[in-house]
């Protein structure tokens, strides 16, 4: 166990070194500062997605769900479409990035609190009722977004589309001042209560029997998940299968129930995939492909594999 985590840490460090140093020419100071900002953003996203997915899957006792089922991505997409619809291309491009980021956080956070607050009661089935409500809201948001996209002119549509693909190339490093503290604080809170996650993984009855306030814990952890999802979505756009890929890999590598280990492994794996992957795509392949595409493709394959494996078992 310790050896595996050590190996993952080394790989993560290697990815970071590769990202910072590969193909650096000219002024080192400029290159490193430029890359360091981007590096921090990628690490932020990696940890946010990894922790959010692992925690969410534990709460749902289901390894093929990701937080995106709650409809956050579609809400984000609707918001971008709405902004372009109301402000036009130029207005959208000229928006203050920090203000937009805060608005997105407020919107996604507010949506999450409404969803949990209204639908998460004392009952045993409430979590799934809430998830279903999330799915339905997701469809609603997507349909409204599609309608708006049909109404705007094709140039504006191209702008919307650009905003909706996860992009690791054009991370907005100006947002890090807000994003980093939020990710640090959220993961610290999860880490502080990591033993409770182990107990929650046993299911509702056992968690209550072992002295947890089940509804309170769900609310606590889901709130953190929604903050992490909101941060990562606002930084790079929606990523659907990346978290699934990372969580599946972490569980596969470690085969343990202890979240202290799984959370660390998932975060390291996510850093390796994002930072290492981005280094390869930017420096070695010369931007010939996009990491987002590959990650989603692999994640999709893992998702299918998990579903088929389940079907067989």
């Amino acid at each position: 166990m310790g050896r595996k985590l050590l190996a993952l840490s080394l790989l993560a460090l290697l990815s970071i070194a590769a990202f910072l140093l590969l193909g650096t020419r000219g002024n080192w100071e400029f290159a490193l500062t430029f890359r360091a900002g981007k590096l921090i953003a990628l690490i932020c996203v990696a940890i946010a997605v990894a922790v959010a997915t692992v925690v969410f899957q534990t709460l749902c006792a289901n390894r093929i769900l990701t937080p995106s089922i709650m409809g956050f991505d579609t809400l984000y997409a609707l918001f971008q479409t709405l902004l372009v619809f109301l402000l036009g291309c130029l207005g959208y491009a000229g928006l203050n990035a920090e203000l937009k980021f805060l608005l997105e956080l407020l919107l996604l956070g507010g949506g999450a609190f409404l969803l949990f607050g209204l639908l998460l009661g004392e009952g045993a089935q409430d979590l799934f009722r809430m998830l279903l409500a999330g799915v339905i809201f997701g469809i609603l948001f997507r349909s409204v977004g599609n309608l708006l996209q049909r109404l705007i002119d094709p140039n504006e549509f191209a702008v919307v589309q650009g905003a909706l693909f996860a992009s690791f190339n054009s991370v907005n490093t100006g947002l890090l001042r807000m994003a980093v503290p939020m990710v640090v604080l959220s993961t610290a809170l999860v880490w502080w209560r990591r033993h409770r996650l182990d107990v929650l993984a046993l299911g509702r009855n056992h968690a209550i029997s072992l002295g947890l306030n089940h509804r309170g814990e769900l609310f606590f952890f889901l709130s953190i998940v929604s903050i992490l999802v909101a941060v990562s979505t606002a930084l790079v756009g929606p990523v659907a299968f990346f978290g699934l890929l990372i969580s599946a890999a972490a569980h596969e590598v470690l085969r343990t129930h202890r979240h202290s280990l799984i959370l660390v492994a998932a975060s390291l794996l996510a850093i390796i995939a994002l930072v290492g992957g981005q280094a390869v795509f930017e420096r070695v392949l010369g931007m010939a492909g996009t990491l987002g595409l590959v990650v989603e493709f692999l994640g999709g394959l893992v998702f299918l594999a998990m579903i088929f494996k389940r079907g067989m078992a």
Partner: protein
Amino acid sequence: MIEIDNVSFRHGVAPVLQDVTLLLPKGGLTALVGPNGAGKSTLFSLMARLLKLQSGEIRFDGMDVATTTSMELARKIAILRQDTHVTARLTVRDLIGFGRFPHHRGRPGPDDEEMIEKGLELFELSGLSERYIDELSGGQRQRALVAMAYVQDTDYLLLDEPLNNLDMHFARTLMKQLRYLADRYGKTIVVVLHDINYAAAYADRIVALKDGRLSAQGTPEEIMTADCLGALFDMEIVIETVRGRRIALHHAG
């Protein structure tokens, strides 16, 4: 002492429990019996705080389940539901170790390890301690779950149909172990049971529910009569005495 005061419960408009008032003294093994739909599992879930009380009160040694924190209650009562399946990948030792969570909150010490060893030994799981629970038979898993409730080391132990997955051998062993816990450690044990003969053979008290109401309570001798059981289950039941034990011949009539 368990005090159940005027507890009523309804699902939607259908009443499941109506004004159940019951006093169970400390110590001993109580069997909760009754026909399907009598409200046994609902009463169990209310006692175990898995369901929220709608009206009435339930207290364990004066601790009100509605107002006491879950963590405090977890050191007073351990519960085991019938339909618990654990999806996490755990070894038997890990699973049993979770029973200590209310005491160590994630940081187990030497006395926790000691208690886990005792649990493994008492429920004959020492040989299986490193096996993963998804590789166990239903009966072995059931024993591991009971062992987990045992190491929680509480005064009260509530079990909902623990014999469900067990064959004759392990059903008898489990009932004997519960009897032993009650006799040796003075634990108060409440078991929801389907088979009236198991209740008669091992319980100190039998509490019978019917249609959401308390229908009868007493010692096995008082309950194991043709009249009482006949009224409870709405069928004719012959009671025979074999080797000093009353047996209900309910399976064929």
